[in-house]
């Protein structure tokens, strides 16, 4: 999903129930392993100015603002925040910076 004038410009969503192991780094230990509920992987993709803004933030702040944006997108009158909504558990929040990566490969056509 494309989100204009937002903290995270793009989100990619995956049904990660069967893909979590493949998508998560091996070093990541889920805080709530083997969740019974469906697991989804939400990836926020931010470059340029959006990434520059994040550069000065802590991981916790980035995750919190990302969740706040998701709340704004998916929340309703009953459930205004995902974290307080017991329908959802946040397994983990990862922030990956590619600032020092020499090569980033993005499939442009697929991403558009």
């Amino acid at each position, binding site marked *: *999903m*494309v*989100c*204009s*004038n*937002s903290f995270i*410009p*793009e989100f990619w969503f995956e049904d990660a129930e069967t893909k979590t192991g493949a998508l998560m780094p091996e070093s990541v230990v889920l805080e709530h392993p083997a969740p019974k509920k469906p697991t989804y992987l939400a990836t926020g*993709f*931010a*470059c*340029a*100015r*959006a*990434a*520059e803004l994040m550069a000065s933030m802590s991981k916790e702040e980035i995750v919190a603002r990302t969740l706040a*944006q998701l709340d*704004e*997108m998916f929340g309703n009158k009953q459930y205004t925040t995902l974290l307080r909504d017991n329908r959802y558990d946040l397994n983990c929040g990862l922030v990956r910076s*590619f*600032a020092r990566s020499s*090569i*980033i490969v*993005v499939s*442009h*056509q*697929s*991403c*558009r």
Partner: protein
Amino acid sequence: MCVLALDQLLTGSSGGGGGGGGGGSANNAVWSLWKEEINYNDPRTLEQYLLDKGVSDEGRALIEAGYSNTLCSTSDRLPLYGTLTLALRAPPPPLLSCSRCSPPSSQGVVRLEQAWSGDGGGDYRLDDSMAAVINNMASKVNGGVRVGWPVVSVDYSRPGVVTLTNEKGETLQASSVVSTVPVAVLKRGALLSLSLCVSYRCDTSRVGCSRYSTEQALLAVLVCDALSLSLSRAMQAISRSTRHCLDRTRTLSIRLVRDYNKLSLLHSSCHDRRSLANSLTPRNNLTSLHHDRHVFVCQDLSRILAPLLARGVARSTCAASEPLACLLGCLPAC
């Protein structure tokens, strides 16, 4: 905040969450980029182009988030065309740049879109599996795809014709063979005869060995095969071992043939054999030799290796940092 699903942005089918007509017109503006005539003197950015097209603030914001962000840039940093001067004088910079890098200056978004335009619009996903692709390709193969046809030998002695023989003695001829049999399988003797044929027409700018001579590349293949090293690591090791003795510019045509019991190195010419010989002298502390490994038959290199082989060299003295020495250590006496 305006939220729009990517497919909506792509098709402009729905305003979605307040996108309104901005999304559609923005999408049309981007989609028509590839139709623009290249004008390297046009200094406009993507942002200016969208403004000129009358794309609304909302639409431009969506393009910023969905298009420019994917290109790791912003609309006001993305050039529409780039400049001819840069394109001619300098190699093209990476198509995508991070926010701290300069935007792609010699390939504007028009050129980028032209590169993609041949594929048509949208993304596609196979309904079932990749088997549909394989089956479609297989339908165009004369005789179809044969499975359960284990090859036991490959005869490439006749120029232009390769004959495969299976375990029942049935034969099949082809113009070429691509063997994907893992080395581990080869070592178990799965193919008892000629098991791997690799042809190199190495102009040193291909096969990823531009910094190395063909001899180095070939030896690297042998070394990485023997020691399960990556090709790049083997190349580096070979380069270190041979120093600068080898001619790095010579273009050779080399055919490497590997057999389960025989390893042959055939090359049409070797520009600097003396240097190669010097690089293979016993300076690598080779003092004895294993007798139970591959036979090394080499039309030219055998003469170089013969003194070493006759002297006898030991693998036990090979340091891990000397893969070339280790390779020689794997070779039995002739």
